[in-house]
């Protein structure tokens, strides 16, 4: 190696050093304050301060208050008999991923990470003893074909919008909005926002169903970060024979024959129109229709709450 060659290498190194410095400054310029995602990992305790009866003990057989059902949805709901739960093939239909916000349970969230670079591949929401775990793919993969199988947990992808996680879920099985037969079709989609404020997590679920709903349902639920670990996996609903029934029958009520149709109406002095749901009944203007005839029941006689309750989730 001659002198010039050696000198040339030194010059090159110096140039590289200067260029590196320039690159560092350029990177500093380029690395603006983009905003980071939020850590959602942890064990989240459910607080049942809204819809406690529907989520906990269970709704009345005909109680579609607050649901924007269309005619088909209402008709199908009224055909439903709770004895269908004895049918192996229908036993688990309550527990699609809609049950995440429709049910009473809290959940654990944890991440699957790529082992080399630590990037999050997916976020997981633990299952309950009914609902299957939910995997939220964070790696940008597309949703499967509309002809693909609908697994019990659906198919979910997520993106960060600032520090809010937005999750889009498709490929759910047909099931129920409420545990009284208010239906969801297999075309239902669930768009959720996970918003964390300190140790408070709000999950907002927007349920769309072109088959049975006239407009989306928007439900928001609140959770507190807990210290008791929730099991990441539990046994999702596994159908089994639990009752004797004729194998060639589907328990149901024929149109116009549901014996529970006026139970809520009578118990709470509500017009049947409201009990059967519908978009109009969700808005403040509907109160003008309710006001002339409504007289509150004199005294609560059953399911009165006795101060309410909070449910943790320890399964």
């Amino acid at each position: 190696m001659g002198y010039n060659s050696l000198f040339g290498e030194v010059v090159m190194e110096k140039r590289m050093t200067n260029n590196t410095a320039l690159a560092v400054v350029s990177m500093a310029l380029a690395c603006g304050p983009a905003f980071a995602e939020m850590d959602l990992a942890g064990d989240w305790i459910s607080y049942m301060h809204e819809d406690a009866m529907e989520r906990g003990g269970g709704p009345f057989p005909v109680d579609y208050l607050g649901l924007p059902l269309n005619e088909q949805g209402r008709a199908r709901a009224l055909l439903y008999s709770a004895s269908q739960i004895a049918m192996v093939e229908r036993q688990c239909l309550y527990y699609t991923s809609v049950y995440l916000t429709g049910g009473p349970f809290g959940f654990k969230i944890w991440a699957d990470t790529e082992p080399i670079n630590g990037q999050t591949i997916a976020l997981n929401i633990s299952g309950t003893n009914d609902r299957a775990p939910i995997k939220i793919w964070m790696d940008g993969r597309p949703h499967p074909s509309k002809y693909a199988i609908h697994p019990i947990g659906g198919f979910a992808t997520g993106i960060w919008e600032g520090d809010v996680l937005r999750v889009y879920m498709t490929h759910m099985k047909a099931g129920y909005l409420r545990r009284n037969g208010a239906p969801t079709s297999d075309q239902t989609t669930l768009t959720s926002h996970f918003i964390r404020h300190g140790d408070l997590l709000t999950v907002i679920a927007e349920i769309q169903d072109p088959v049975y709903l006239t407009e989306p349902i928007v439900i928001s639920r609140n959770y507190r970060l807990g210290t008791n670990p929730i099991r990441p996996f539990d046994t999702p609903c596994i159908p089994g024979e639990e009752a004797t029934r004729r194998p060639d029958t589907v328990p149901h009520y024929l149109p116009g024959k549901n014996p529970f149709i006026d139970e809520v109406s009578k118990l709470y002095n509500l017009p049947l129109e409201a009990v059967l749901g519908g978009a109009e009944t969700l808005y403040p203007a509907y109160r003008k229709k309710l006001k002339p005839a409504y007289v509150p029941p004199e005294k609560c006689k059953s399911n009165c709450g006795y101060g309410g309750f909070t449910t943790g989730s320890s399964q």
Partner: protein
Amino acid sequence: MKVSKNTLRIAVALALLPHIYGQGRGGPPPTPKAAAPVDLTGYWVSVINEDWRFRMVPPAKGDYQSVPMNADGIKAADAWDPSKDEAAGEQCKYYGAAAIMRNPGILHITWQDDDTLRVEMDAGTQTRLLHFGNWKAPGGEPTWQGDSVAQWEMPRAGRGPGPPEKPKSGDLKAITTHMRAGYLRKNGVPYSANALLTEYYDVIQGVDGNPWLIVTGVVDDPTYLRTPFMTSSNFKKLPNGSEWDTTPCSARW
């Protein structure tokens, strides 16, 4: 003194940094109105998909589902008598800050000034003021809407590539104290004058592109509650105020 071209390049780049990043260190901070990471203004209508039976109509006396009342709370609720409230001129007990978002109605949110967000509600014809900055409460008797101190909550800045940007998300946090004792439910479920209300105002984009305002409220009241009472109320954005419909407070409806 000989200065290399590269050194000059670095010096120029460093000199440009504050300009590129906006305010620099010497400029005044933006006002809360200018710094808003999310637009809360406009008309918002409540959509009652949840707790319909407790919100759209007055529930029966003694129907306390979901509310974690203690024994004193239940005793107070059992003594509820709307005629007494009317006689005492206290028809607005269910329209106080701790409960107003549960009322079906329309919110009209505007900036009263650079530091004050004004939240009007047609149900009960109420107005709340959410004060940013170093606002000091005036004192005096408690009011239905209490004293609210607000701040923006921004996502923490990361190290991602790209030019400086305004936060894509963020929310308003408000803490309200000095409220007049009222009801969490129309049927006399109580909160006391010692209650503290913490709220988060979040805006999300619905599937159809229409914004939704989610107001999450946590009521702490050791006088009448065993645990904080947490609810979140959902509002859909309206294009204008054509549906605005003020109604007076009512102890019975």
